[in-house]
């Protein structure tokens, strides 16, 4: 849709088909796994920056995986509900 073009107003939420749901869930899993690696790397880097060696980077990565996965799941369901 180009800018300036009037949007059609939605009257009802679109239906969710199974294939779209599976695709969105796959995207959620991919993002969560990526964020796990990002979290591990960030924890190691942040610990090195602070000069601390007692940081449990694996635990930080696991918590990052859970939190980002939950947030992505909520976002995917919201997107599915809005767009179908």
């Amino acid at each position, binding site marked *: *849709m180009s800018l300036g073009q009037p949007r059609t107003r939605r009257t009802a939420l679109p239906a969710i088909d199974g294939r779209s749901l599976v*695709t969105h869930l796959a*995207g959620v899993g*991919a*993002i969560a796994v*990526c*964020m796990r690696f*990002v*979290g591990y790397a*960030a*924890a190691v880097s*942040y*610990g090195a920056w*602070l000069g*601390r060696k*007692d*940081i*449990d980077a694996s*635990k*930080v990565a696991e*918590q*990052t995986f859970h*939190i*980002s996965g939950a*947030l*992505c799941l*909520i*976002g995917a369901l*919201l*997107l599915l509900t*809005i*767009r179908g």
Partner: protein
Amino acid sequence: MHRLQVEPGVRVLSRLPVYAAGIGLMVALVLVADARDWNGWQILAAALGVGTFYVVTILVPWLVREQDTDATETRKVLVAEFLRADLSSEVREFKGGWVVPLGDGNGGTHESATHGPEVMSPEPPLALRT
């Protein structure tokens, strides 16, 4: 290592700012994607970028600080247990990071402890400081 057991409800409450920031970013991303009619790949790329920003700048520093707080609390518990178990006959108070001996430092009485220390050890051992 001895770890404090934090109740899940307390943990969720203490992490509320982090969760709120994540939900805010996520809702903003969904609204922008819907308004601009992005396709799936565009949404995936944007979500990876926003997620990386969130994890690196907000989530990981918070979790690392949380671990630091846990370690500090654990150290306090360990020192308190140590004082209670091993030094209960010699030490009455542990205040402000200093070990205060009873009375004149040779045992003392309850009265001397309640009226405050008369003698403080000039240089407490490093392990007994918080």
